[in-house]
C-alpha cells in the first residue's frame, strides 16, 4: 500500500499547506483588484448579462480632464498632510507627558483612547451636532468668549479644517498608542546614562528619544496617511462633500460616480487613481525617511 502523504515532505508539504491561503488571497484580493483595473479600461453594460467592452484610455482621459478629480485629489492630500502632521505632533507631546508619570496618567491613557474606539459614522454625527450653526454647542460657546460664531461645515474656506479637526480628535490616540509602545522599548539605562552625563531634557529628547522613536513614527505616520487618504465616512456624514465640492474626498468622489451614478467603469478608474496616489505618497515618504536615517547615521 502506497502512503500518498509520505511524499508530502519538505517544500512540497509547505506548498500544499500554503495553497488554500493563496487561493483565498487570489479570490478575495488579487482577482477583484485586477478586475477593477480591467474595468478602468472598459465600458460596462449589464444588459444581456455582464458585458465589458474595451474602451482604451477613455476613462483615464475623462479623469484627467475632470475638474472634480483635481479638486478631490487636492482636498484629500491636504486633509492627509495636515491631519497626520497634527496627530503626530499632538500624539508625541501627549506621549512624553504621559511617560513622565504625571498623576492619573493611567486614567488619561484610557480616556485618550476612547475616541479611537468609536465608529467614524458616530463621530461624524457627533461632530455634525457640535458644529450645528444654531443648535450646536461650539457656536453657542464662542460668542460667550467674545469670538464670532462660524459656519463650520458650510463655509468653503473652513470646511476642510473642520473635517481635519474631527480626524485629529479621533485618531491622535492611534499615534499615542504606537509612540507610547515605541517609547517603552527605549532601554531606561540609556536614558539614565545620558542624564548622569548631564544631558538636558531637550537634548535627551533630540538626541536619544526622537531618533529611537523614528521606526515607530514611520509606522504610525504611514498607517495613518494610508487611512486618511481613503477618508470617506466622516465627510459623508458631516458635509456630503459640500458646500459645492469643497470637501469632496477621492473616495467620496469615487462612491458618487461609481455607485450613486452607477458608472462602474469610471468609479473603478477613480479608485485606481486613489490607489496610485496612496502608493506614490507611501513610496516617497519611505524614501525620504530612509534618506534622513542615512544622513543621521553619517
Amino acid at each position: 500500500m502506497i502512503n500518498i502523504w509520505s511524499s508530502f515532505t519538505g517544500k512540497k508539504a509547505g506548498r500544499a499547506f500554503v495553497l488554500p491561503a493563496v487561493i483565498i488571497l487570489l479570490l478575495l484580493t488579487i482577482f477583484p483588484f485586477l478586475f477593477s483595473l480591467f474595468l478602468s479600461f472598459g465600458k460596462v453594460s449589464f444588459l444581456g448579462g455582464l458585458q465589458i467592452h474595451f474602451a482604451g484610455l477613455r476613462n483615464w482621459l475623462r479623469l484627467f480632464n475632470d475638474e472634480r478629480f483635481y479638486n478631490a485629489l487636492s482636498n484629500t492630500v491636504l486633509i492627509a498632510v495636515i491631519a497626520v502632521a497634527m496627530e503626530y505632533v499632538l500624539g508625541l507631546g501627549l506621549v512624553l507627558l504621559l511617560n513622565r508619570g504625571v498623576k492619573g496618567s493611567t486614567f488619561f491613557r484610557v480616556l485618550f483612547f476612547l475616541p479611537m474606539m468609536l465608529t467614524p459614522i458616530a463621530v461624524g454625527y457627533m461632530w455634525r451636532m457640535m458644529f450645528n450653526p444654531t443648535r450646536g454647542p461650539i457656536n453657542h460657546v464662542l460668542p460667550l468668549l467674545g469670538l464670532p460664531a462660524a459656519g463650520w461645515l458650510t463655509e468653503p474656506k473652513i470646511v476642510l479644517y473642520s473635517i481635519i479637526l474631527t480626524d485629529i480628535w479621533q485618531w491622535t490616540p492611534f499615534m499615542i498608542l504606537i509612540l507610547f509602545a515605541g517609547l517603552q522599548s527605549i532601554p531606561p539605562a540609556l536614558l539614565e546614562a545620558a542624564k548622569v552625563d548631564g544631558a538636558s531634557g531637550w537634548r535627551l529628547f533630540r538626541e536619544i528619544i526622537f531618533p529611537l522613536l523614528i521606526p515607530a513614527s514611520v509606522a504610525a505616520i504611514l498607517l495613518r496617511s494610508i487611512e486618511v487618504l481613503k477618508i470617506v465616512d466622516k465627510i459623508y456624514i458631516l458635509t456630503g462633500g459640500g458646500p459645492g465640492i469643497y470637501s469632496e474626498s477621492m473616495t467620496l468622489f469615487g462612491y458618487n460616480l461609481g455607485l450613486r451614478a452607477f458608472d462602474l467603469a469610471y468609479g473603478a478608474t477613480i479608485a485606481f487613481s486613489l490607489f496610485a496616489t496612496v502608493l506614490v505618497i507611501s513610496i516617497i515618504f519611505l524614501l525620504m525617511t530612509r534618506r534622513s536615517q542615512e544622513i543621521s547615521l553619517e
Partner: protein
Amino acid sequence: MFKKTRKSRLILVLCVSAVLLSALGISPALAEKRFEGVEITVFTQTPPFIAKPVQMFRADWEKETGGKVRLITAPWGELYPKMFSSFALGAKNYDIIIFPAAYLADFASNEFLAPLDTFLAADTRIDWLDILPVYREKISTYAGTIYAITMDGDSHMFYYRRDAIENPEHQAKFKAKYGYDLAPPKTWAEVRDVAEFFNGWDWDGDGRIEYGVVEGMRKGAQGFWTFFSRSAAYTSIPGQAQGLFFDPETMEPLINDPGHVQALEDWVEMIEFGVPGMINMDNGEVRSVYAAGEAALAIDWGDVGVISDTDPGSTVKGKVGYSILPGTTRAWDYVKKSWVDFPEVNHAPYLAFGGWIAGIDAKSDNVEAAYDFLSFLGSPENSYICVTTPETGFNPFRESHFEKLAGWYGYGFVNPEDYLGAIQATIAHSNVQPDIRIPGAFRYFEALDAQLAMALAGAKSAKQALDDAAKEWEAITEDLGKEKQLKNYRASLGLPIE
C-alpha cells in the same frame, strides 16, 4: 365507554365531512394555504422607513396563504446597484423589490420586471382604480404596461406657519414694506418676500430668533428635487409636453434654459433668508428644524406635515399651513425659446421622487405568490393603515386614503383636511410634472447635484453651473445611446415613439 363512543362519533363526522368536501372539490385547508411551502424574498430599504409595512403585514399574509416572506434590506445608496445587478445577471436574488419610482424606466425598459396588467385585471382585492390616476397611469406604468404596484404617493408641497402669517401686526408691517397683503405665498417671488420678512427676528415670541425658510440643499442628498420643485413652474407650460428635463424631440438637455437659471438664482438667494447652515441640510434635518419652530416656510414631501403635527417633540402642532408648490407669472417656452406671461399664477407641482413602488422580478420562480403578497400589502385597507402609521414612510395615493379622516385624526393630525387637500391639489393638478424616468436617471441627477452645489456655494454663477450640468447631461446621453434614451424619454412621457 361513553368517552369512547363520543370520540368515535367525532372521528366519523370528520371523515364524512372530509369525504363530502372532497366530493365537492373543496379542500378548505388547502384552499386557504395556497402558497404553502413557497418563500418569497422582498428587497427594500433598511427599516424602519419603507421596510416597516412589510414587517407589519407579512405575518398576516403568511397565516392566510401558508407562504413565507423573507425580507432583505440595504441602505439607500446600495439599493440601485444591488437591484440592477441582481436583475441584469439573472441572479434572481429577490422576488419583489420595493424601489424608488425613478428606477422604473431602467428596470422596465430592460424587461427586468414582470408585467402586471393580467394579474391586476383578475384581482378583486387591490381596487386598482381607487389609486389616483397619476400614480397608476404614469408612476407605475412604462410604455403603456403596468410594471409596479403603487405603495407610496410622493410629491413636494409647501408649508407655512399660519400663526406667523395670520398675525395682524405682521400683516401690517409686511404691507408697509412690500406694498401687498401678507398671505400664504402663491408665487416664488412672494416666497422670497415672505422669507425675507420673517428672517432673523423673534416673530413667534419664544425668546429665540427665527428664520425665513428651510429647504434641503445638501450635496449628495435630495437638493436636486427641491431645485426641480422650484424650476417646474418656470419651465412647464400647461398643455405642452414636459419641458423640465429634455426636449422630447431631440433629447437636448433643457436644464440650462432661462427658466431653470431663474429658478436657481432664486434658490441661491434663499440661503440669505434661510436657517443658518441650510446649505448642509438634507430633508431629514429640514423636518426637525421646521418642527422645532425655527422657520416660517419650508418645502418638503408630506413628511414635514406629519412630523409637525404628530411628533411629540414638535413645537408647531396645529400651527402649520399646507399648500401646493408656489408658481410663477411667466414660464420659458422651450419650443419658441421665449418667455410666456400668464394672467394668473402658473402652477406646476412636481412629483419629486415619485414615491416607492413595488415590482416583481420577471425571472422569479414565484411570480404568483409575489403578486399575491403585493396585492395584500397594497390593498385599500392595508395601504390605509400604512399611510396613517408613523415610520412607514408612505404617503397617501388612493382616493379612499383622502376620504376616511378617522385614521388621520388618530395619527395625530390637527387639520387633516388641509393637509390632504394640499396633497390632492398637487397630485390632481392638470400641469403636474412627473419626475425623470429614463435609464441612468441617477447618473443625470448626480451630475446636476454637483453643479447645483457649486452654485449654492457661490463657486459658480447659476448660468455657468447649469451650462456645465447640461454638457455633462449631453455626455451621459451620448454614453447611454442618444436614440435609445430619446425613445425611453418619450415613452416615459407617454408620447408616441417613432
